[in-house]
């Protein structure tokens, strides 16, 4: 393994681990759930992406062929992180937030879609 490979792999590991640490520190430090959601979903996912990139380069340099396992994991994580964040925010809104007081009035005709059921004629149309 060449020196360049080693430097790049070490840099990726250090960057990834630092991002994971920053994400978890944000989870401890930030004041309430809606702000806390930002830290793990962005920083920690990026940290895992860095570790997976390091692993990909390492095994490519070691065995001489490309492996796509890591790409699969990082693709899966990058796809699922926003979904879990959205779901957690929805659960939090429905349990701990009073929409009358905490949320600004919706500009449309019907109000916030997560609290108001779909209007009748729209659901009949499709």
């Amino acid at each position: 393994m060449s020196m360049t490979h080693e430097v790049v792999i070490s840099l990726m590991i250090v960057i990834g681990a630092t991002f994971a640490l920053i994400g978890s520190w944000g989870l401890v430090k930030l004041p309430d759930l809606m702000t806390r959601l930002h830290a793990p979903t962005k920083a920690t996912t990026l940290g895992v992406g860095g570790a997976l990139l390091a692993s990909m380069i390492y095994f490519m340099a070691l065995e001489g062929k490309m492996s796509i396992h890591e790409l699969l994991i990082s693709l899966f994580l990058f796809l699922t992180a926003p979904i879990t964040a959205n779901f957690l925010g929805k659960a939090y809104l429905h349990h701990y937030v009073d929409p009358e007081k905490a949320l600004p009035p919706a500009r449309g005709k019907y109000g916030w879609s997560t609290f108001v059921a779909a209007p009748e004629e729209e659901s009949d149309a499709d």
Partner: protein
Amino acid sequence: MIGYALAFGFSAISLALLFNLWRLACGPTMTDRVLAVDTMVTNTIALIVLFGIDQGTTMYFEAALLFAMFGFVSTVAYCKFLLRGDVIE
């Protein structure tokens, strides 16, 4: 050089897991605890991948992939349970 980077990576991610554990233990709301578990799963995937580099074997990718899938499914199931009081209606 990779050895030092791996040592730093292991200690940083272990510290991150401790932070998550603290949030899991005294998160004020249920959603905080679910978020802490989800972050722990993500950090564990990073730990498994770094362990795979340390051991020089590609055997651990399948474990990491399984962790990713089960982490996602369990978080969605927890959120569904919090929202509806039931997982499969």
